[in-house]
Each structure stands twice: as structure tokens, then as C-alpha cells.
């Protein structure tokens, strides 16, 4: 009797007869990034005729809720789980339990240290490095070789964000040794707070030469502050992810580069691989679609444009 409001409109798709069920568990539902992943998963479900359940905790910090979601999927008796894990290790027990129950587990976006069938995702550490390199380059273009940068982050203790920050520091240090990180600030995914913190930093640090924002909420806040202070032209900003607001900021120059991943692909590919392993096919153990740095120069290339504006899932089917 278990019904799902998800799946391809909840109605019988072409290949529904296959009867497979895949649950997609993302890091947090209320973010357009993860909704894009849902959209990809949903499309794959439609194309392949399987039922796709979409779940996620309300916050990326809530590892425990994700454990519960995995457990609930075990209870639901699905065939496979596509999981964007909020922690490298904390979900291991739940994943093991799922695999013991015969459920295939595909991880996306972040790896886990226990065994799974496959992983698809960008290496956040490396993507962070790309951001660091780009910011270094942008600062150089401003004719500056030394100074400090603000690292605007969302939530302390979230692995992916921590990896990006670490990668960013490494990328920056490798290419611009004279430029140091002034402070790392956390805004709890609140754009207004991010704007406040950036404004404060702009006021407090005279030699602030650039800003790195580790996700879209941070990026939007930074863009707001840059506009507040009229420093669009001379303050390089590199941010992560993409959403309409960040894209607009990229277009108007308050953000200079966006490091974008491909969540739609994560979802589509995740479900596809999940079905493949469920039916006994082989899939690559690890797949990295890589991150793309979008800027004003390439933002209108069709490929980049698609990355910047991925479709998102519809809440109501």
C-alpha cells in the first residue's frame, strides 16, 4: 500500500513492470542544488520506468536524520538507494545495514568510507582548489599580489563545505603565497547573515582583496554586500554552486566566477547506475564529472548555461 507521491507522476510509467524502486536521499531538501539532483533522478525514473522516492533531511548538518532516512528506506524495502551522504563515516553503519538487506547503495557528491556499489561526484577538495586558483588569478588581474581574503562559509562541521574551504586554502596558497585568508565566517545558510559578515569584513579589513563563498547562500550574501558597498568592479569574488540569484550576480559582475557541479547529472546517473547494479550489470566504481568554473566569458556557452540553470524537481509531482 505504500504510495509515493514521487516517481513519474505516481502513475505507471512505460517500464513500470520492472517493479524496481529506488530511493534518492540528498543532503538537504530545501536547496535548489539538491532539487536539481531530484529532477535528474526523476527523469531517469521516467526514462527507465522505475519508482523513485525522494528524501532528505531539512539541514545538511543533520547526519542523524539521514541515518534514519536510510533506515526507513530499508523498512520500505527498496531495491537501491542513491545517497548524497552528509558525512564520510557516520552513515557507514546504516549503509552496511542496507547492503546486508540486499539493497544496492550508490553514493553521490561525497564519498563514504564503507563499501558501496559505486560513487559519482565531484571531489570537493579539488573543486575548492580550482576556486582558490581562480581567485588568485582574479586578484592578480586587479594588480595586487598581497593582501587578505574572506572565506565565507555556510555551516561549520559539514564535510563537503569543509573540504571546499580546505581545497580553497590549498589552491590559494599554492599560487598566491602572499595572499592569506583573513577569517573563515559561517553564516548558517542565511543570506542576510552572509551579507552582514561580508560587509563587516569590508569595513574591518582595509587590504581585503577578494572573497571566496563556499556555497550558493554564501555567494548570494557576498554579492549583496559587494553591491551595498559598490565594489563590484574591484573586488574579485569566487563562489560555489549556481542558482538564479548567483547567476544574476555573475552576469552583473558582483560575482566573478562560479564553481559549478552538475547535480542533475548526479541524480540521473545515480538512478541509472542504481538500476544497473540492481539488475546485475557492472558500473564504474567511481565517476567524477568534474567541476566547471563559469564566468562572464563562458556563461553563455550552451554547456555551461545548462550547468548554471539545471532543471529542478517539482514538489507536486
Amino acid at each position, binding site marked *: 500500500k505504500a504510495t509515493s507521491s514521487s516517481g513519474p507522476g505516481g502513475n505507471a510509467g512505460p517500464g513500470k513492470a520492472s517493479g524496481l524502486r529506488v530511493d534518492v536521499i540528498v543532503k538537504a*531538501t*530545501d*536547496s*535548489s542544488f*539538491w*532539487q536539481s539532483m531530484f529532477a535528474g533522478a526523476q527523469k531517469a525514473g521516467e526514462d527507465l520506468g522505475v519508482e523513485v522516492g525522494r528524501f532528505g533531511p531539512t539541514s545538511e548538518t543533520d547526519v542523524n536524520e539521514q541515518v534514519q532516512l536510510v533506515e526507513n528506506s530499508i523498512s520500505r524495502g527498496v531495491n537501491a538507494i542513491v545517497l548524497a551522504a552528509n558525512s564520510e563515516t557516520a552513515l557507514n553503519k546504516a549503509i552496511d545495514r542496507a547492503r546486508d538487506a540486499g539493497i544496492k547503495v550508490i553514493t553521490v557528491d561525497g564519498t563514504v568510507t564503507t563499501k558501496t556499489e559505486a560513487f559519482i561526484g565531484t571531489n570537493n577538495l579539488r573543486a575548492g582548489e580550482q576556486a582558490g586558483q581562480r581567485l588568485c588569478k582574479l586578484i592578480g588581474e586587479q594588480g595586487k599580489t598581497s593582501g587578505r581574503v574572506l572565506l565565507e562559509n555556510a555551516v*561549520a562541521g559539514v564535510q563537503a563545505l569543509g573540504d571546499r574551504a580546505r581545497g580553497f586554502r590549498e589552491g590559494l596558497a599554492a599560487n598566491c603565497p602572499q595572499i592569506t585568508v*583573513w*577569517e*573563515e*565566517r*559561517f553564516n*548558517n*545558510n*542565511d*543570506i*542576510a547573515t552572509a*551579507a*552582514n*559578515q561580508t*560587509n*563587516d*569584513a569590508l*569595513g*574591518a*579589513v582595509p587590504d581585503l582583496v577578494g572573497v571566496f563563498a563556499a556555497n550558493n*547562500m554564501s555567494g*548570494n550574501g557576498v554579492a*549583496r554586500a559587494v*553591491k*551595498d*558597498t559598490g565594489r563590484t568592479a574591484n573586488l574579485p569574488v569566487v563562489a560555489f554552486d549556481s*542558482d*538564479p*540569484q548567483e547567476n*544574476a550576480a555573475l552576469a552583473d559582475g558582483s560575482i566573478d566566477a562560479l564553481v559549478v557541479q552538475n547535480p542533475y547529472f548526479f541524480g540521473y546517473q545515480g538512478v541509472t547506475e542504481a538500476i544497473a547494479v540492481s539488475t546485475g550489470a557492472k558500473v564504474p566504481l567511481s565517476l567524477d564529472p568534474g567541476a566547471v568554473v563559469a564566468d562572464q566569458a563562458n556563461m553563455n556557452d550552451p554547456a555551461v548555461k545548462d550547468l548554471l540553470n539545471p532543471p*529542478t*524537481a*517539482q*514538489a*507536486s509531482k
Partner: protein
Amino acid sequence: MALPKLIVRERDIGDRPSRIIGWSDAVGREGGGLVVLVILFGALALASDSFLTGGNMANLSRQWAVYGIIAIGELLVILTKGIDLSVGSVVGLTGAVAAQLLVLGFPIPLAVLCAVLVGGVVGVINGILVAYAKLPPFIVTLGMMGAARGVVLVITNANTIQPLPEGFSSIANESLLGIPNLLWITVIVIIAIGFLLRRTVFGRYVYAAGSNAESARLSGVPVPRVLVTVYAMSGLLAGLGGVLLASRLDAGVPTMGETYELDAIAACVIGGASLFGAKGSALGAATGALITSTLNNGGNLLGINSFYLRIAIGVLILLAVSFDQLQGRLFARGEQTQAGTSGNSPPGEP
């Protein structure tokens, strides 16, 4: 018996100056909040050159504004012994509604009005459930907090709504006479609600309902109507906060306002309100919000490591309230705390 008038109390009560405004208006902790604030400003001005600059003051006032407005709405509810956990979600909801309506082509004033009214409607529902269905405010507004956030996410599908028409973002981002619009609006709200609470019949009803709902009812105060109004106003002010935040961010962000309820309640309590009702003022709540905003702003200016900053702000909030309390005890007439009133006040009221 030819005794004189024995009604004369031995320690006659008459020599204090005549007061008509409620007790808590005159002394009490609301005033104290201001003292803490002054000290804080002084300390930060000494510690950081950039603190007292015009630019930073404008920043600070923008950072404070939305919190202050929401806190004042929350205060109204807290004065009646209630609590409103839904304000954060209402901020998100109304911001998204305003943005959505603008995208649909509504003129700005109409979109703003509709969005604020949506906040009011949420408040009215809260109020009816509290006042007539007699459900605990904590539960009513907790349920509403979840439901309203769910509605925002459904409406927006977790997507940011933008771009918005030109003029909208200027509401919250521009200045009038060199002072940010947000500051003007906040000050107007403080004055308006302060006036409402102190000088109007409705305001006194709010304190009466919070002091003792049954006694108020017996005195002819329309308690249920007061409650509904109070929740409605909290919703309206949160709605205003949501619209301003959307304007400030130039987008309707569905996660906007998360955890603001806690900030709002904290601002009220820091500003001298009691969760047991009937104590607190609009100015106090706004001061409480400004204290936390200033702590954050100052911490950032001083470049304190963000983990230590969290610890420091936790400790400083405690210190501010202790100082305030201490001051309150010194200024208020000595025995007060020891003596009679203790029935209502808890072991150190929350």
C-alpha cells in the same frame, strides 16, 4: 471607640512621585538594556577604529532592522504569556509571496501589501487556535512553523525567486536623508508599537491579559480578541520583516528566516521581557535585538575566530543580562524581589 483614623498605615505610602504609566515602564530592565548597549558601543569604539564609522553604523542598522521588527512582534505575543515560533517561517513565506507576486507582475505596493497580509493571516490562525481552541501557543506556533515553511517550499519548489523588478530592492537598500530606509522603518515600528503598548487601551489590555487572563476577563477585557490581535500583529510584523528581507536580498529565498524565532525570543528576553507575561517593552525588545547584532558586528570587525566568537557571544549575552539584572536590583526598590510578588515570578524567570 474614639480612635483616630486607623486606616492610616504606619509607613504611609504617599511620598513617591505620582506615576500613571505602568511600573515596568519607569524602571526595570528595559532601561538597563540601553545601559548595556552604551557600554558595548563604548568598548567597541575603543577596540576597533572601524566600528563608529558612518559606513559601519549603516551596516549595523541594516543588520539590526529585520531582527528588531520581528522581535517587537514576538514581544507582543510574549507579553500575553504566549510564544510565537512561527515568525521565522512567516519571514520566509511572506518574502517568497512578495517575490512571487512581483514576478507575476503585481505592482510593488500591492505585492508588498498582499505579502504582509499573508503574514497577518498566519497570525490570525495562530491566534484563533490559541484563544478559542485554547491550544498551547508553543504547539500551535510550532505546528505553524513547520506548515508555513512547507508551504514556502512547495510554492517555490525550494528555488530562489528572482529577478524582481527594479524598484523593489530599493525599499530596503536605499537611504533617506542619509539614513538607511531600514532604520527609518524600524524606528517607526518601535515608536508605533511602543505607543500602542503604553498609551492605548489595547496596549493595556495586552499587559492585563498577560498578567492574569482570568482576572482580566472578569474586569471586562476581551481576552480572546486581544490574543488574536496580538498574534495577528506578530504575523504582520514578521510579514513586514519578510518583505524587507526579500527586498534587501532582491529575491525571495525560501529558506529565509530559519531560526529567526529563537533570535526574536532571545531579543525580547535580553531586553527585559519575561516569558511569564506582562513584562517587557517594545524598546526593550528592539534593544535586545540590537545588542546581539552589535555583538556579531563587533566580533566580525575585530576579526575574532568564528568558533571563539560563538563562545564569546554566548558568554557576553549572559554577562549583559547579569549586569542588567544586577542594575535592576540596585535601582528597583530593595525588597521587591524578596517580598510578595514571588508567586508569579519563577525561580529566576526565563
